[in-house]
Each structure stands twice: as C-alpha cells, then as structure tokens.
C-alpha cells in the first residue's frame, strides 16, 4: 500500500499542519510517511502546499507529479492541481471558497463546505480540521478516527482545551460530511 496526498491552499489555512498530522498518524501507526512542503516566498500570502506519502513499504520519491488524492482549499490551488491529478484519483475541495468547480471527468470530486462547517464547530480557522475528518473517512482503510485525533492532539497540544474542542468538533463534522458525500 502506498498512497499520496497533496494538501494545498493559502498560507494560513493550515494546509502544512493538516499534512503533518496525517504523516504523524502514519508514523505512530508504524507505517512509513514522508511530508514534503513547498517552501519559499510563495508562502507569504500566496499558495502553500505539501505532499504526504504514506506506505507500508520503503518510500522512494517523497514528491509526486500525479497525486492520487488532493485536498484543495482555494481557487489558485484548484487551478494548479486539478490538471495534475492521477486518473481515478480523488479531489476533495473546499466549496465555501473554491468557485472554480473541477471539470475533469476521470477523477472523483468531493465538495465539502469546509469553512462553513468549521464555523459551525466554532471557528472558521478549523477548516483544515474539517478536512482532516474528511480524510479520516477517505483513508478509512489506513486510519481509524482515533489514529488521526490522537496525532492531532500530539501535534497541536492540549494546552488550549477550548480550541481542541472546536477542532474535534470540526473533525467530526468533516467525517460526517464525507460519509454523506462519498
């Protein structure tokens, strides 16, 4: 089993963190994982993305030019990554912010109103955690919800319990939305 995922959005949407939580969950499960950030001046207000590869084998390339899975948080990222998706891949996008609906017929497309759901949970800033919940459903053959929630706590800490509650709620809403959508 080898799966790859691109997470892309604006700098500040927590796309790097989302990728790191998934890589951490994989590592804690004894799987191999790589996390590769885009880095450089493009992060300042521009687009940011990271690539996560999870495998039960040794990982060769940590970067992929044909992602099997993508979480797209804004329009510029949609423009950049929709054409790159592997045929048969799954593209999940934040339908609150992304107005450019994907046109490709050879990929699975899942619309999740991530910001809306995050606001329901208590903060629009938890849109990335909504998507973590979505990924918990999409990659349910790899992770349990508990795996990802534990990794989330390990990554963001539990010093601010209120925030953690919002994040957990956002996760649950994302998981539910994905169950309905897929």
């Amino acid at each position: 089993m080898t799966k790859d995922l691109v997470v892309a959005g604006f700098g500040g949407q927590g796309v790097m963190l989302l990728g790191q939580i998934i890589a951490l969950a994989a590592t804690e499960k004894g799987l191999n994982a790589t996390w590769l950030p885009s880095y450089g001046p493009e992060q300042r207000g521009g687009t940011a993305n990271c690539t996560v590869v999870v495998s039960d084998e040794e990982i060769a390339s940590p970067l992929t030019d044909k992602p099997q899975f993508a979480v797209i948080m804004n329009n510029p990222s949609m423009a950049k990554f929709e054409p790159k998706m592997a045929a048969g891949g799954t593209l999940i996008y934040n339908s609150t912010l992304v107005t450019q609906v994907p046109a490709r017929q050879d990929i699975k497309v899942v619309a999740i109103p991530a910001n809306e759901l995050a606001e329901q949970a208590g903060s629009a800033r938890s849109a990335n955690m909504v998507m973590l919940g979505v990924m918990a459903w999409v990659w349910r053959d790899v992770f349990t919800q508990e795996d990802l929630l534990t990794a989330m706590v390990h990554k963001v800490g539990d010093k601010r319990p209120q925030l953690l509650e919002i994040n957990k709620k956002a996760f649950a809403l994302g998981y539910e939305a994905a169950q309905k959508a897929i």
Partner: protein
Amino acid sequence: MSERILMKGNEAVGEAAVRAGCRLYFGYPITPASEIAEYMAYRLPQVGGTFVQAESEVSAVNMVYGAAAAGKYAMTASSSPGFSLMQEAISYMAGAEVPAVLVNVVRGGPGLGDIQPAQSDYFQMTKGGGHGDYRLLVFAPYTIQEVVNLMPTAYELAFKYRNPVVLALDGLIGQMMEAVEFTDFRNPDEIPIPEWAVSGKFRHGGKKNINTSLDLIPEKLEAHNWKLQKKYSEIEEKETRFSYFGVDNPETLVVAYGTVARVAMSALKKLLNAGRSIGILRPITLWPFPKQALAEKARHAKRIVVLEMSSGQMIEDVKLSVFDPNKQYEFYGHPGGVTFTPTEIEEYLVRG
C-alpha cells in the same frame, strides 16, 4: 535504537550531531538550512553545549576551526552562498589538518540564486572549493535516516583522517519530514582529546602543539602536500561508499545521488517490474567517488544516464571512472532549483 520520530531533515541533522557527541555549533542562518541552527540553539543548552550565532558565515566557520583545533567535535551548516563564504577557512582546516563536520544544504545558484533544492555545488565540494591542493570527504545521504546514520561516521572519519567532512544535502532533504530512528548518545566526555589538539600544553605533558596551514619553506610545504595526498589516497582506498539497485549487468545504468536518486528509485522500481535491464548506482560518498564500482557496473551497459539537479557536474567523474569512449553517455538535469519528478525520469529512461 530508540523510537521512530517524525522529524524535519534539518532538525535531524542537529539531533544526530548532538548524539554523535557534538556540543559546539557556530552558525549563521540561511534558507533552506536555517532550521539546523534553530534546532541547535534550542538543543545544545539542554545538553551543556554551546551555540553561537556568528555575525557571518566567515566568522562561524572560523569559530569551528578554532574549536576543532582544540580537538572538539564542532559543526556548522549553511547553504550554497553561505558555504561559498566558508571556503577560505575550509582550505585552512584542510591544510592544518583540523577535523570538523560541515553541512551544506544545497540550493540553486550561481550567485544568490534561489532557495530551492539543487546539486550544483558538486564541483565546489568534491574538487576543493578553496585554494590549494586538498580534498574533503563528502557524504551525500538520500533519506533523512541515512543522514542520521552517517553522522557518527562523519565525525569518526573526520578525526581519524584529521580532515573536514561535508554532509551534502539539498533543500528537499532539509525541509521534508520523515520518521527516523536515532542511535544512542555518545558521551562527549569519553571522546579522547587527540594528541595534536591545541588544548593546553599541560594536557600533553608539556608538549606545545601548533596547528597551522602556514609553512614558508617551500620544500617543507611540498613534503606536507605529499603527506596530504598520501592521506587522500588512503581515504579513496578505504572510505568509498555507494549503493546499487537493479539487475546485475544492466543495459542502462543510471547514476544519481541524494534527492535525485531517491526520486529516480520510484521510476526504477516501475521499470524493473516491467522487466527492463536497468540499475541505479548511487554514490554515497561524492569524494571519494566510487570509480571502481561504477566501471564494473558499466561494463555491459550501452547507456549510462547521469541525472543531476545541476547542468552536469558529476557526469565528468562518471566519464573518468568508466573511461570508455564507446559508451553512450547521457546527461539529463535540472539546474537552478528545479526538482525532478518520478514520471519525467521514467519517461526519459524509456524514451532514451
């Protein structure tokens, strides 16, 4: 071995150095190497070490020169433009036979270039980037785990041969995260102070040590140079490292190191599954270069394909190693901070 930790490449460099016994870090920040300094600034005080942010790379590397001359495990790290600034002191260290581990997280050049991953410092690192006849032992790990595994070796060999050792990374290995397992801690107090160290004459029974690269008598300096060359020959004979993956006598032999080798592995696996006669030789030491292994693996090869994130530097060593004008040498590269993708390598190898 301990638990697996998900860690950034640059941070793993720092932790591995601490575990190898390094307690002295002198640095100046630069993307994409800054996290090494950041990590050491946080980590060294916890283990009784010293971190100094110098006013420049020139200053940082000369602090390493001083600490290492006293026989201590010291380190600095930088990225290409900063590493260029260090060349003078590196030449001095090579001349004075002072050991240290230096990390170059290579980025696109020339000049200030950009901050993306590159391999265009190959010539600088392997041919002696400063003045004079000298060589550096250059390791080019391709995963974060290999970075960690090579760190204690880097220090051991630096001190065994009294020569600076370079870990050649690139922006991608520095910035990515991966699970790593660390070796146990080496207690720095148990690392013996070498006989040659400038660490107080009473420590050496009243013997005064002088570490210098200066010798104004040409005949003596010539003798010193021949001594250095003899040492380099010994390093070439004993410390060359490489890995090979593929069929025994490949028709197509790929040569790549570091990140490029790792990306190429994805392509190689696919092509081998498809039954192609192909293999990849990955130099782990860029100097000494695995000449013999390469010549052997190339014996039956028709195509020798060199992949580099540069406009073609290692290919010169590949040609010198194989030394056969009847082979077909191909170079495929990306200078300027552009990274290969697995698909383009696969397509190139199939297309020819």
